[in-house]
């Protein structure tokens, strides 16, 4: 048995399994953990397809930074909060399942039919990624593309990030926060205590 097929099988099972588990986990922390599992499995899939740098970033940024942020917020809002799994909206679950099923069928149809149609023409260049990884190297070619062809979108994302940061500052600020800065330390402490309570 080919080692790649085996590894893919394991990844497939882990990714799908923890995705499905996300659906049924009551605790938000558990959901987050299952998501981390999925993302690590996906990083494996990236590795298998020659996307080394992306796989590394997936682990570091996604499974690391972003998920930590999620957990941080979950903790902030109350870790013992359990979501009731009863559905108050009439027909919401049924509709979601039916639509999701239809959607999956359609995407799967496209995935197989699409590659069937395309592979005959494209497998010639299929060795391209290995070539690139070998000659200039995965990171180098990524960097070249990112800082030449995609320079403008890259800069645009930096603007986006700045905007996001500013937006978060505005949103998260308590109304009248500047007044708190001016108030004596003891009152600010009281506020914190109240907030904690």
């Amino acid at each position, binding site marked *: 048995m080919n080692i790649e097929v085996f590894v893919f099988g394991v990844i497939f099972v882990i990714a799908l399994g923890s995705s499905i588990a996300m659906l049924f986990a009551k605790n938000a922390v558990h959901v987050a953990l299952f998501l981390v599992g999925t993302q690590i499995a996906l990083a494996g899939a990236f590795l298998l397809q020659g996307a080394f740098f992306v796989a590394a970033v997936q682990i570091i940024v996604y499974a690391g930074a972003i998920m930590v942020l999620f957990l941080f917020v*979950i903790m902030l809002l109350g870790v013992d909060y359990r979501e009731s799994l009863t559905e108050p909206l009439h027909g919401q679950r049924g509709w979601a399942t039916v639509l999701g099923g239809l959607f999956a069928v359609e995407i799967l149809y496209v995935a197989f039919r699409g590659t069937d149609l395309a592979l005959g023409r494209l497998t010639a260049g299929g060795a391209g990624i290995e070539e690139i990884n070998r000659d200039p190297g995965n990171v180098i070619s990524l960097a070249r593309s990112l800082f030449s062809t995609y320079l403008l979108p890259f800069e645009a994302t930096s603007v986006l990030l700045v905007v996001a940061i500013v937006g978060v500052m505005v949103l998260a600020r308590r109304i009248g926060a500047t007044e708190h800065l001016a108030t004596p330390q003891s009152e600010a402490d009281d506020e914190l205590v109240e907030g904690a309570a």
Partner: protein
Amino acid sequence: MSVDPGYYLALAALMFTIGAVGALVRKNAIVIFMFIELMLNAVNLVFVTFARVHGHIDGQVLVFFVLVVAAAEVVVGLAIITVIFRHRASANVDDVNLLRR
């Protein structure tokens, strides 16, 4: 390469669908966000798969952009959730239905 790219795409499709259904079914705003992350991840897998199919690095580059957008979205989204929580003491999206009135 012995695994057909179709299987990677199938995995991505299933993950995406699970993400969509989860986003519809769950009520906790943070959880919904995680399902959205799941959908974005599925798309990332598609990008990487097609990068291999086409033998071109661009698909992998696009993953970075998705990543950035996801990060920005999470940051803003979570900030909104905390603000809502501060006002309503709840992260349940069904409690936020002011538009109905």
